[in-house]
């Protein structure tokens, strides 16, 4: 046994951009070495993008030409994604049944929305939770109705429970006792008490019924993109960062063909006070995923772009954070970058005097919970 093919045999630049490059230009993979293939599969799987890569290759008519081993890994993942798509519809039927009597309007969010509205990001998506949005003043009613049908909060201690209810934009995740499916019930699309306020009723006003079931609505196209942007760029969690960025890229490509869409998008961002997240979303989908965003929109004054120094610093941080969560994509700076973005997200979320005790508490709980599990 000697040192064999490893991440080292693929040069650094290529290593960091393998997944992105494959998504932007699938034909690149036809000339890849085994070492590059192995790394691509491993990174893509970690990033939750393996099935999406498969769909991209399939759409480009290139899947047949992929070598046997990577191809069977891709096909297995596509099967999983297909199963998830079926599961989402099934689970949604149960949720609708549970909430029918309350008459509460429901808006589907994120992956659930893409699946039901049959939008491009539904392709090759591996789902975990179902995400729905309900009016804040009906949350208690919704939670009660769900608990009646055997949904329950699990694994959340009293502090985290309060954290969710007071600061976050959702109640703690609900797990169905029998089916073990997870449901996230949101009541707004950025967190509770923040620098950035959002009026949920505007989202409900603009919501669009789906063809699948007129009773199920999704956010209007601009709101869908803004939600995705706010979620990705303000929440400090990047384990699915590249996937979420690709979702946005697909949405922009899909809706962007309509004349006036980008202008309306910018206006809506101003209206909902989500200028900065949109600025970064347009910037990074364009620079990292070659999304065709008009230059005048990217540089629009209306978005109140950050100062060049801050922008450059954010570029560094986000380029790090939006890499696949894989050892081959990490360098000495990665840990700090992620930490800074995490703190930034919480700073945006909570006033400073609450932030530090909270971060301390999170670290304390995590460490001791882990010790407890080991024992």
């Amino acid at each position, binding site marked *: 046994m000697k040192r064999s093919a490893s991440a080292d045999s693929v040069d650094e630049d290529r290593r960091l951009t393998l997944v992105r490059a494959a998504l932007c230009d699938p034909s690149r993979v036809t000339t890849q070495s085994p070492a590059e293939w*192995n790394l691509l599969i491993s990174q893509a799987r970690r990033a939750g993008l393996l099935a999406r890569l498969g769909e991209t290759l399939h759409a480009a008519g290139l899947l047949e030409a992929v070598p046997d081993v990577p191809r069977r890994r891709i096909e297995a993942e596509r099967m999983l994604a297909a*199963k998830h798509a079926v599961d989402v519809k099934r689970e949604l039927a149960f949720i609708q049944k549970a909430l029918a009597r309350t008459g509460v309007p429901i808006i589907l969010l994120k992956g659930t929305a893409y699946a039901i509205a049959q939008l491009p990001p539904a392709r090759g998506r591996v789902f975990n939770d179902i995400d729905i949005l309900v009016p804040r003043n009906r949350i208690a009613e919704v939670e009660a109705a769900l608990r009646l049908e055997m949904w329950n909060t699990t694994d959340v201690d009293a502090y985290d429970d309060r954290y969710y209810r007071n600061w976050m934009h959702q109640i703690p995740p609900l797990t169905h006792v029998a089916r073990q499916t997870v449901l996230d019930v949101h009541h707004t699309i950025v967190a509770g008490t923040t620098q950035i306020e959002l009026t949920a009723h505007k989202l409900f006003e603009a919501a669009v019924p789906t063809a699948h079931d007129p009773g199920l609505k999704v956010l209007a196209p601009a709101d869908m993109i803004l939600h995705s942007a706010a979620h990705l760029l303000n929440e400090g969690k990047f384990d699915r960062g590249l996937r979420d960025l690709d979702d946005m890229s697909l949405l922009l490509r899909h809706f962007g063909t309509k004349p006036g869409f980008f202008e309306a998008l910018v206006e809506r961002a101003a209206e909902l006070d989500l200028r900065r997240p949109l600025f970064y979303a347009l910037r990074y989908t364009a620079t990292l995923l070659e999304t065709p965003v008009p230059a005048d929109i990217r540089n629009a004054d209306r978005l109140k772009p950050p100062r060049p120094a801050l922008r450059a610093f954010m570029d560094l941080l986000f380029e790090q954070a939006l890499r696949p969560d894989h050892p081959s994509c990490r360098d000495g700076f990665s840990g700090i970058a992620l930490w800074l973005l995490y703190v930034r997200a919480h700073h945006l979320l909570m006033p400073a005097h609450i932030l530090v005790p909270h971060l301390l508490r999170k670290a304390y709980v995590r460490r001791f919970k882990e010790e407890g599990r080991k024992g």
Partner: protein
Amino acid sequence: MSIAAILRTGPFVTRIETDISAITHGLRQLYAPDQLLMDVEFSDFDVAVVRPLLRRWYRPQATFLFDGHPPFLPLPLAHAVPLLEWGLNWAISLHAHEYLIVHAAVIERDGFAAIMPGVPGAGKSTLASALAHRGWRILSDELALISFEDRRVVPLERPINLKNESIEVIRRFAPDAAFSPIFRGTSKGDVALMRPSAGGVACRSQRAIPAWIIFPKYINGLPAELERKRKAQFLLTLASNAFNFSMHGRRGFELMADIVDQCECFRFSYAELDEAVEIFAGLRPPERLASRQ
């Protein structure tokens, strides 16, 4: 200093990175030379068994990584080799959806397979290991991979996991068998890995036609008994023992139903391995299958 090996087992190629000498030693001991490759290969899975950065000296540990990420908590360093084996099983059962994967031992003779579903404590590994030294070839002690394409079982070409008393029982039953050292005090008790008897590459990788489904049960003190049973129960039990049954939905159900249809289904209770060997020696594949071959 970590090194990487490429391991070819059954239908999978796995890249294994490690900085633990027991792992490199274990790989050489438990796998055939032609299963360990030198050069760059396309790999299905990218795993590592390494020592975590912290806890290097006090109660050293080994951790299993898949795509650079640990799916489970670390184990004591002394259990590195069983950790690798359990990790490989985990990787297959969670990702190899190109097959219907059933928790079962599978043995083969003359191209026909007996699938023995894995009720815990039923002694399927012990039974399979014994039969592997009396005229049968073992395809797996843990995971039955059933192909959607040709409805055959695909061999895993991996060592067999034996626990506690079974280790000594099989050592006495098959004195020539090659064993790893015994790993004491794991979460499953004392564990040893047995290398399957050397067969040629071609024979080792042969797929097998399912002909028998047998639920084994170790019952001390009674003579061995093979009892034919109604098939409906077997289909249900097999379905509940399949890792990815619900993933495949209807397609999985139909494959499973076809397999149960074509097989003879038995409950088997035994106490003495010699008796078991004799009864298994008397098994004949169903007429329809035998003529088809």
